[in-house]
């Protein structure tokens, strides 16, 4: 097995960031199979390209960006944009949470536009700081704050709760 510059094997990287990649893909895609595809492809891309990352933060940023790009590719693929899915496609619905409250929160999150959804996910679920989120997304901190602010407003309206503050 090939080693990275940081001497982390693919297995180690997967163990450490599986939740980040998987959860992020879950928030972007609607079908479990597509999530699995993206999950595999992210790590195979990592394995194939062995990106030179100075530290773990940079590695996490690389994985997040790659995951987002692959999710977009999947969402905008010829298959997803031009083929009407069968009704039973819902059988592969991506995720089920243990409580109804959690399901509603996640459902509300996924109904946001991507430009709001991603910062929210990174900030609240991944517990990244505004600065880290800005760096990963390649936008300014002000833009992150603005998107978070708008997203919070939208979520609050929908959930009528104070999960996102």
């Amino acid at each position, binding site marked *: *097995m*090939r080693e990275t510059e940081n001497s982390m094997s*693919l*297995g180690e990287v*997967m*163990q450490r960031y*599986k*939740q980040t990649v*998987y*959860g992020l893909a*879950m928030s972007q895609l609607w*079908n479990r*199979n*597509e999530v*699995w*595809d*993206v*999950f*595999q*492809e992210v*790590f*195979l*891309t990592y*394995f*194939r*390209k062995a990106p030179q990352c100075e530290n773990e933060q940079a590695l996490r940023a*690389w994985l997040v*960006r*790659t995951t*987002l*790009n692959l999710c977009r*590719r*999947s969402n*905008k*693929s*010829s*298959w*997803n*944009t*031009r*083929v*009407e899915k069968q009704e039973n496609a819902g059988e592969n619905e991506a*995720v089920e*949470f*243990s409580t109804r*409250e*959690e399901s509603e*929160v*996640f459902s509300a999150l996924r109904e946001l536009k991507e*430009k709001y959804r991603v910062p929210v996910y990174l900030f*609240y*679920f*991944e*517990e990244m700081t505004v600065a880290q989120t800005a760096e990963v*997304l*390649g*936008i300014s901190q002000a833009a992150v704050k603005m998107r978070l602010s708008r997203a919070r407003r939208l979520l609050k309206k929908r959930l009528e709760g*104070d*999960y996102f*503050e």
Partner: protein
Amino acid sequence: MNRDIFRSMCSQLTPDESLLQRTLQLAEEHDEPKDEESEQAVRAEPVLKKRRLGVAVAVLALALGVGAVFGITRLNRKEAAPEQALDKAPAQPDDRPLTDEGYFNKAVDAAYQLELGMPFGQAVDTLVGLGGEDPLFADDPADDLICDAVVDFGKYRLLLSEQSDRLNTVEIMQLPDGMAFELIPVTYYTARDLVGCRETDEAIGKWLTARKYTTRSEITAALGAPEKSSGLTDTYGWIRFNYFEDGRLENAEIRSQLLGYWRLLRDEDIQIVDDEVYAENDAIFGEEKNELDYSINSAMYCLRFMSPDMPAAEARKIMAFAAAEKPKVKSRSGGTTETYSLGGCDVILGITDTEKLWYADISKAGSDTSTPIMPLPSQKELFGMDRSDDYTDMLGAWYSVIDCRTRESVRAVLGEPQVSKRTYDVYSFGNEKLMVRFAFESKVVGFMHYDRQLDHWFELSKRYTTEAPAQPDDTEPSGDNFPEMLKPYVGHRSSEYDTDFDRMMADVANLTAADRDVFFDDFESFGDPIGSGLLISSFYGAKNDGTVHSQTKYYRYGPYMLRIWGNVDEEPNEELPVKYGQLLVSVERWGNLDTGWVAPYVSLRIISEDGTDLPVESHTKEEIDELAYIIEDPKLLDQVQDRNESFGR
């Protein structure tokens, strides 16, 4: 503030261990030698192994990429037989009947073994060999098929159509009465892959030089130092040569423009011919391609990209890819003629004193008599060359049916043909012949002319005509509401420009309200080509109930992909970029097909229902160039998408 709920949710967003194992397994499968033989090969040729590994991983990545694009992966199949996919032990035969999903996967996987342009019979056989049921052919009168052959996989049906006995389209539908969806986008891997792509043209040019040699030292001497040299591989732009350790050339690979990966160079790349057309020739006469055919095809390929008045330098560049030697140049009144030898035939370019292309002819090698190819109709006026009355009659007949769309309408004008087959009719005019070619037995797809001198069928194309310059009409765009960057192109023809970008912009600037009407009223016949762009893809977007909501045509200008998208959905939908009856002209760029259809776009024009232009914000060429998306250096697409939104998307 309730962070606990997110932590709780995060803990549930964890993949199964089996997914991790499978991912590791996939990586291992492509990292480790599979057997003793390959281990020996690795020991013997370590560098070669590395390269092959790279290719294998690239193929894996491509396969996964394609899988992701179409939502099909090994894992999807695994759901049908999980224990088989996860178990590292040798797979046991699985006799269980396939689920619908299994059949679907099987059908799609089988389809991806096909390649557009491959022999049609071979395509059908391939599908049957991969588990498809016995095929049905359109020739069978018992079946009323809307395509040329179908192969069923359970309740899923692959519909194949052919053109000149080559695979042309592959679609999938669900039985019994589902809609058919294009399964394999119109991507051509051979000659069409080259069209408009400078890098690939240059790569082919290098190969035409290098193919005379067999060793690394000879090729290096001919081509100069490689841009990149690693182990046994030398790379020159989009072509790379792989050598054995003793320096002999093993093979050459070319980078696929559309697919973005390296593949072995094939004969088709070199022949650079429109096989569909010339296969017809073989079918009629049973002729094997000989040297003359080969060189005529090469010449015709070159001439496809020429047009009267184009810059001479551009025409020379095109010829340089096909001709091994420099041209013979002769002075003549008003300019020069340049004769390029292509082996069995010569191409003669007439160049004016102002360095514009005047005409292009083909002649048999060494023959004094050339066959005028471009421009055809005004040959007599321009060059004083007199063709026979038969020839004039043939051309006249062609003009009289040039806008006919069906076999019936052609016959209504020309009467019964002398020869009639399923895919063509032939009309004789003395010693001249006109062939009308059909698809699906009736739809006119082209015209050909038989040249007795060269004993060859040539395609008759509007491209080679020299119609009088179009008169400005009432619908000519005024340029009002154009983005600033488009205004300089108003009133200029694309042939006046040297770059793909400029040609594209000129074509866009010259789209008229009348073009918009044709797009909506007669979509099939809308611009192929428009201006200098090459039609890459043309399709309808359909909703679940079968109604059409949009029409799209893609044209390629080198690395730029021009999209013309019309909304034909009468139901209001604010999510769509333009309203009903409006035409959106935008440019997008595929970094490579690895990115699938992920292509942010920049609007260039929006033509409203009444033919007037709606305001579109301006932007720069540099911004359009930034649309390129390179997976090796992930950049967030929404950075360009955000900008697109501000451009009026």
